[in-house]
């Protein structure tokens, strides 16, 4: 059985939703970061899937964008984790519920 494009899109949609759920519902900042990473992975999967099912001749655009996205995601994770550490040092917590300094 060869999977069709729809299968990939459904998996990616599921991955995105799980990531979104994690980002919205977890209290721990690192889990939120993980959720965001999952959403990024879903987007990458979409790029690859559309590229894969693109009729030939193919340009490696989908792969290039996915590679860029992975590189940027790595940088984002580094910055994000650094932020979490900085926040932890300052507030002694990583629970985002307690980080409400921006409250209006």
């Amino acid at each position: 059985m060869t999977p069709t494009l729809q299968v990939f899109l459904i998996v990616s949609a599921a991955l995105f939703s799980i990531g979104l759920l994690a980002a919205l519902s977890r209290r721990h900042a690192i889990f939120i970061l993980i959720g965001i990473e999952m959403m990024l992975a879903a987007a990458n999967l979409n790029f690859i899937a559309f590229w894969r099912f693109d009729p030939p001749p193919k340009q490696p655009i989908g792969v290039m964008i996915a590679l860029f996205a992975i590189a940027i995601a790595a940088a984002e994770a580094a910055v994000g984790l650094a932020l979490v550490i900085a926040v932890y040092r300052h507030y002694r917590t990583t629970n985002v519920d307690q980080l409400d300094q921006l409250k209006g």
Partner: protein
Amino acid sequence: MSWIVDYLWMIPAVPLAASLVILSLSNARHKNAAALAVIGQVVALALSVLAFAATLQVPGFRAVRNFTWFTFGEQTLRLGFVLDPLAAAMLVMITLVGLCIFVFSIGYMAEDKDFTRFFAYLSFFSGAMLGLVIANSLLLLFIFWELVGLASYLLIGFWIEKPSAAAAAKKAFITTRIGDMGFFLGVLWLYGRSGTLLFYDGGNGCLENGGLAMLGASATFIALLIFCGAAGKSGQFPLHVWLPDAMEGPTPVSALIHAATMVAAGVFLVARVYPLFSSGAINGVTSSLTVVVWIGVTTALMAALIAIAQEDIKRILAYSTVSQLGLMMVSLGVGGVAAGIMHLLAHGFFKALLFLGAGSVIHGCHEQDIRKMGGLRRLMPVTFVTYAIGMMALSGVPLFFSGGWTKEEILHATAHWPRSHAPYYLMLAGVVLTALYMTRQVIYVFFGNRRAAAERAHESPRVMTMPLIVLALCAIFFSVVLTPAWPWLHGYLTGEPVRFEIARLLQPMLFISLAVVGAGIGVGIWIYRKAGVPDRDRPADIDPLEYAQPGLFRFLAKKMWIDEFYDRSIIAFSWICARFSDWMDRYFWDGLVRGFGAIGQVFGTVTTSVDERGINAGVDETTAGARGLGRLMSAAHSGQIQTYLGAIAIGMLALLLLYAWLA
């Protein structure tokens, strides 16, 4: 039987899948975790035995299954699995030793709170290692290589709450990474030159004539770069520093990874890509192989010397591992590939046995310092007997122990190296040293008077002694296929026919190694006969050698100051770089930013005064309105980031719906 080649991928896949399932179990279900890991290992062992049986059909059996991973523009990247005697022998050894260690761990880790996590990591490691062995592509091998490195990192730092364990894990990861950097450069270079990373591909693989022809002189440099990776993983000088520190992990891990299997990956890699090393050989000598020989000799001797002065039962074994790996590298370098791999296999059994024996001792007396043990042979009889077997196999006692035969074979190969005889004599010295430090360890741990930690020692439970017995039997009966009278394993690895000829048993090398090992053990017994008891004016806790040669002993006990040297040189250098960057950031760039800030401030002051004096009056009314509106809106700002995120998600959903509705 060749159908097994189509299912080779399952050998690594089963333990990897088991690892994933175990990871999702809770700690309360630790019985299931252990059962799953053991079952995964048993399945892998059964498949490995089937694969092994398949390779017996014809001499020099080799079957390859390649597939396309992806196509990128014009380039096609292909991966594959290979089954040949080298891979099959490694598969059986890894799964068999792995199984013994898994069972042993059930007893050893019974009280640990992270029992399931431990078994998940163990399974993960086993799967990665098995994948490494059957990879038919340098890239696939590299992927599994890194997975093995990750598993090692996770397992060394298993007791992550211990700062020393965390530091050791980091050190292992970074040190091996230095080697892997070279390895990866070698992979890229090889791909650039030959356009393929497959080992065997119907004559076009990079290890076959078609690929080697395209490499030309660059093969030497590629081989040396790949050897960097092998040196990192197999703890060769100067990248050996991580291996002794890796003893911070639980003892079964030391047995599985840092003795029997993972560290063997480097030796295996060199054996696997041997055609790269030997391409363009004159009389069996190439410059890359010569480098391998001298690195191996340096490592073997240095580690054996350091092992004499260590006090931690596991550290002695760790240095012994480093030394034995050096010996294997020498064997590969002088052209004795089969001998090196045979020693690797035999070493896998008896070193796992020794480490598990050490684990049993540690479990029994909750102490790792051999000076505080003593007289354990009556308290832990099973451990003692099996440990003694392991010790004699490692020392290379001829005739009955597997290590003796393989060591003889290596010495034999080294003696015939055309370039120099120095490695041969240095290796003989290494054998003496090996016998010496193992005798010292056994006397300290099992003989003499009972010291502090030996008082409350007890024999380990059955689940721990059974694997010891199995491995001890392996260490002895493995020699059946190793003897010169019937060198079946040698023939199996090289594909040459084998005849049974009892007369070949008695050859000069047998008597040389008998004399050398006898000398090592004899000197050991003579020096350490009164170890642990006060003798003349020497206190009980001072090593006899330390008493005689305090300066030399200290030099060896401090591991020849290599760690300190790295601290002062490489680490100090990167520390200075970091301090410099920090200083630049703090003072130079910050200064620039502050300067621009000051300019902005001046402008700000000017505009403020214009604002306040000139424009202000009419604006006040507007601001009052805006402020009211702002107060209204600020209620929506809860400060909770997740509320904002939710709002964004809802907004996106609304836009999507709008789009769907309009289209």
